[in-house]
């Protein structure tokens, strides 16, 4: 899936194990000899801690190779990891794009920016990918793995550069860039009334702060637009690939299908689907639970045997649900995309050991995977 790729972007809805998958992939590629950086936003703290990342550095740090040696994992390459601090990344971007110090300070000190910059359309998604772009340009790594931000909707992420561009190109900003000339000269009679009403609704202070904010951002429009265009180019570059992470539950599958269609429509490079937390069903068909209970009775006694059978019944319902959902996903994806199923592991994954468990499935051949599943389930 990752051959010849410089950038892997893990997308999907929240709560499907995106961060864990991104970390496992990065660890696997590093073990195979590559210099890899995994970029994540606010991951589970214990996962970060287990990789030795206590603080928000905003620059990649080398994960101590001893961590892997302790677990018997041979690390031929290097694993680097960073936790992205969106606010700081945005500040850095403003710093880089400002024509001069005065313009930079005007933005950074503006109360609207300070209080609300995280709410600018798609800014968190944009900063994640802007950072990715910078790391790619610096060229210090063979592979960058991005764990996309936990957005409301996975698509927000793809749209972020365009939305930011249209924000800067839009009339909204243009209106505010001319705070002194709002009269009839520029916008005609209607707008004069509009702005006097607007002042009444909003209060003058807010309007003034906004004007200053937009005006000072105005000097950076070209820089932002260039950056957004470069980021868009990186997203559709042949060296980039999107990996879709999903759980076998209906909602997350629906979101995955939607995301995939959008990727295809935008001609973005697509690597494959990773389905996490699958309840595998190797028995197939219906199970006679009474028969199972009878078989186990001599060894376990009637009460425990019945309970074990009942538990299998629940598991089997989930396994069938998962299989139906996964089959539907496969057919909706045209039946041609690569799909890797990772079983529902008994332990919550938040350390190197857990990542290794996932890695074993990701890196296995089809035949090995089937063999491992037999071991897990039946």
């Amino acid at each position, binding site marked *: 899936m990752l051959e010849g790729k410089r950038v892997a972007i893990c997308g999907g*809805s*929240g*709560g*499907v194990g995106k961060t864990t998958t991104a970390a496992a992939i990065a660890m696997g590629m590093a073990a195979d000899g590559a210099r890899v950086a995994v970029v994540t936003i606010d991951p*589970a*703290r*214990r996962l970060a801690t287990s990789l030795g990342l206590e603080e928000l550095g905003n620059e990649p740090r080398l994960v101590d190779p001893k961590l892997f040696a302790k677990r018997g994992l041979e690390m031929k390459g290097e694993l680097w990891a960073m936790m992205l601090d969106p606010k700081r990344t945005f500040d850095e971007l403003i710093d880089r794009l400002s024509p001069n110090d005065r313009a930079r300070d005007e933005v950074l000190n503006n*109360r*609207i920016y300070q*209080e*609300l*910059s995280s*709410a600018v359309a798609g800014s968190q998604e944009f900063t994640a990918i802007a950072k990715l772009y910078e790391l790619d340009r610096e060229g210090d790594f063979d592979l960058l793995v991005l764990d996309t931000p*936990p957005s*409301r909707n996975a698509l927000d992420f793809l749209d972020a550069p365009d939305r930011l561009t249209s924000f800067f190109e*839009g*009339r*909204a900003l243009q*209106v505010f860039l001319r705070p002194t000339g709002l009269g009839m000269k520029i916008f005609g009679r*209607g*707008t004069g009334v*509009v702005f006097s*009403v607007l002042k*009444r*609704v*909003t*209060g*003058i*202070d*807010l309007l003034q702060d*906004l004007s200053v904010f937009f005006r000072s951002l105005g000097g950076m429009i070209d820089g932002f637009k260039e950056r957004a265009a470069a980021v868009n180019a990186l997203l559709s570059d042949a060296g980039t690939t999107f990996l879709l992470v999903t759980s076998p*539950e*209906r*909602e*997350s599958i629906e979101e995955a299908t939607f995301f995939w269609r959008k990727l295809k429509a935008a001609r973005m490079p697509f690597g494959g689907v990773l389905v996490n937390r699958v309840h595998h069903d*190797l*028995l197939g068909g219906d*199970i*006679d639970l009474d028969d*199972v209970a009878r*078989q*186990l009775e001599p*060894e*376990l006694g009637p009460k*425990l045997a019945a*309970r*074990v*059978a*009942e*538990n*299998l019944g629940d*598991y089997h319902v*989930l396994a069938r*649900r998962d299989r139906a959902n996964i089959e539907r996903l496969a057919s909706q994806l045209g039946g041609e995309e690569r799909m890797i199923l990772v079983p529902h592991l*008994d*332990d*919550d994954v938040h350390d190197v050991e857990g990542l290794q468990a996932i890695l074993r499935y990701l890196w296995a051949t089809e035949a090995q995977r089937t063999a491992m599943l037999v071991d*897990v*389930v*039946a």
Partner: protein
Amino acid sequence: MEDLLAKRLLFVTGKGGVGRSTVAAALGLVAARRGLRTVLAEVAGQERLSRALGGEAAAPSEEIRLAPGLFTISIDPQHALEEYLRVQMPARAMAEVLSASRAFQYFAAATPGMRELLTMGKLWELAQVQRRTRGADPFDLTIVDAPATGHGLAILRAPGTFAQVARVGPIAHQAGAIHTAITDRSHTGVVAVAHAEEMPVTETLDLRDALRADPGVPLVRVFVNAVLPDRFSKRHATAIAGALDTAGTPAARAALRAALSGHARAGGQRDQVARLRERLDTDPVLLPFVVGEDGEQQVFERLADVLGQTATAKAAA
């Protein structure tokens, strides 16, 4: 439960994928069954609730009846803005000038945090004893199926932030009033839904701290969703593991493996629930894992039964 249903505005938030909407809907059913005129409000065009509870896809901001005493609404910031202007503007003509003005649309779209403020404003309006929307009947309880943690917080914080930034003028005034309602504990409550897993528990504890810092409200209840049945003791597990060596058929082996897996997972969940119990001021409410399609009517009903029973048991005790 009684304390939650006594509030006018209830936010249901939590990490993605933990069943926020399901719990919000179940709470709505419980409230409606107790005779409260209840509205389930969805944010950001998800329309999951009305779909799951068998309602039709609705026009934005339309109040739709799902069941006796239970309504749903999907909040659209643009629509909320127009509604706000109609109420705010003394002259109807003036409101129309603004609504129709492109410059004004741009202003609303470009102002950071404006969508969140407008969304919160509409939620506040729904929870008013005297509705501002002309001809609208009041609700006893508004339950918000809020977006995942980060964005949910942004909505709760927007009024306070705007009140501060705008200082004077109608927005400052209005935002200040909404902020006061959010921080009034008898009026508004924030609850979280979590799974009994490391990441969601950590995020729930972080959310509790973040809420306390800004806008300065407590997390009044945590619902732990999808708790697995704890069927097997340690002794059972040992016996089951022993039986694996001799089990003959694939079905028997699968049953034993599934039992060991269930035992391990239930144990992991127990540890996480203990972690919540230790760190929270309130006892978390455990909701059973319901085997079935996520978002199905039966899941809501089943959870509503459990929630209703918990409440009755507590009241009796």
